[in-house]
């Protein structure tokens, strides 16, 4: 069964540093997403990406965040200057079509900002 692959599984970074979280979505999927889950809290939507541009983003997704699909297979989330409160599990997901089909999630990257 096809999987969404995320690397690294765990990243520790110092406050103020830039981090890039990487994802390889399922190859025939058209829609890509990032979500995050702060420990003990709910899974929250960050951004959706379609046709090489952001189609929707949440209030969390401020100027510190950016996404890119640099080479047609990878889908990256960059946090420019990390803050302590960015510590969370970050999930990448992809979907084949519009609403109703459900997502396939990656296994997540645990980001710890110290």
């Amino acid at each position, binding site marked *: 069964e096809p999987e969404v692959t995320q690397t690294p599984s765990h990243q520790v970074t110092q406050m103020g540093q830039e981090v890039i979280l990487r994802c390889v979505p399922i190859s025939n999927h058209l829609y890509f997403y990032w979500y995050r889950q702060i420990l003990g809290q709910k899974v929250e939507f960050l951004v959706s990406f*379609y046709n090489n541009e952001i*189609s929707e983003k949440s209030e969390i997704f401020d100027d510190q965040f950016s996404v890119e699909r640099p080479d047609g297979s990878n889908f990256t989330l960059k946090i420019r200057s990390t803050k302590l409160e960015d510590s969370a599990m970050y999930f990448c997901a992809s979907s084949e079509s519009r609403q109703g089909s459900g997502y*396939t999630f990656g296994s997540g990257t645990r980001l710890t900002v110290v």
Partner: protein
Amino acid sequence: AQRVTQPEKLLSVFKGAPVELKCNYSYSGSPELFWYVQYSRQRLQLLLRHISRESIKGFTADLNKGETSFHLKKPFAQEEDSAMYYCALSVGDNSGAGSYQLTFGKGTKLSVIP
């Protein structure tokens, strides 16, 4: 704004007992609802979507628009059902691009006692 409520943080049942994981939602439009499951140290996996009216691993969920609920049920719990269960509601994006975001509940941890 849409909201998903899972009132129980933890639900413990004995093996063989019936299970009902509650989910209520608030959304002014026509919702599409999902259940995701996360087994220990694994990724979020799609369990059910209301449009397909399927039964997966013995679980079923019926959308009740009058009560704005989408409760997950299983007549006889198994030990392997122990996991975190998340109810989610999908909302189309404002751009009409076809991507959509999921609004998650906080999750219910199901523990099946042998």
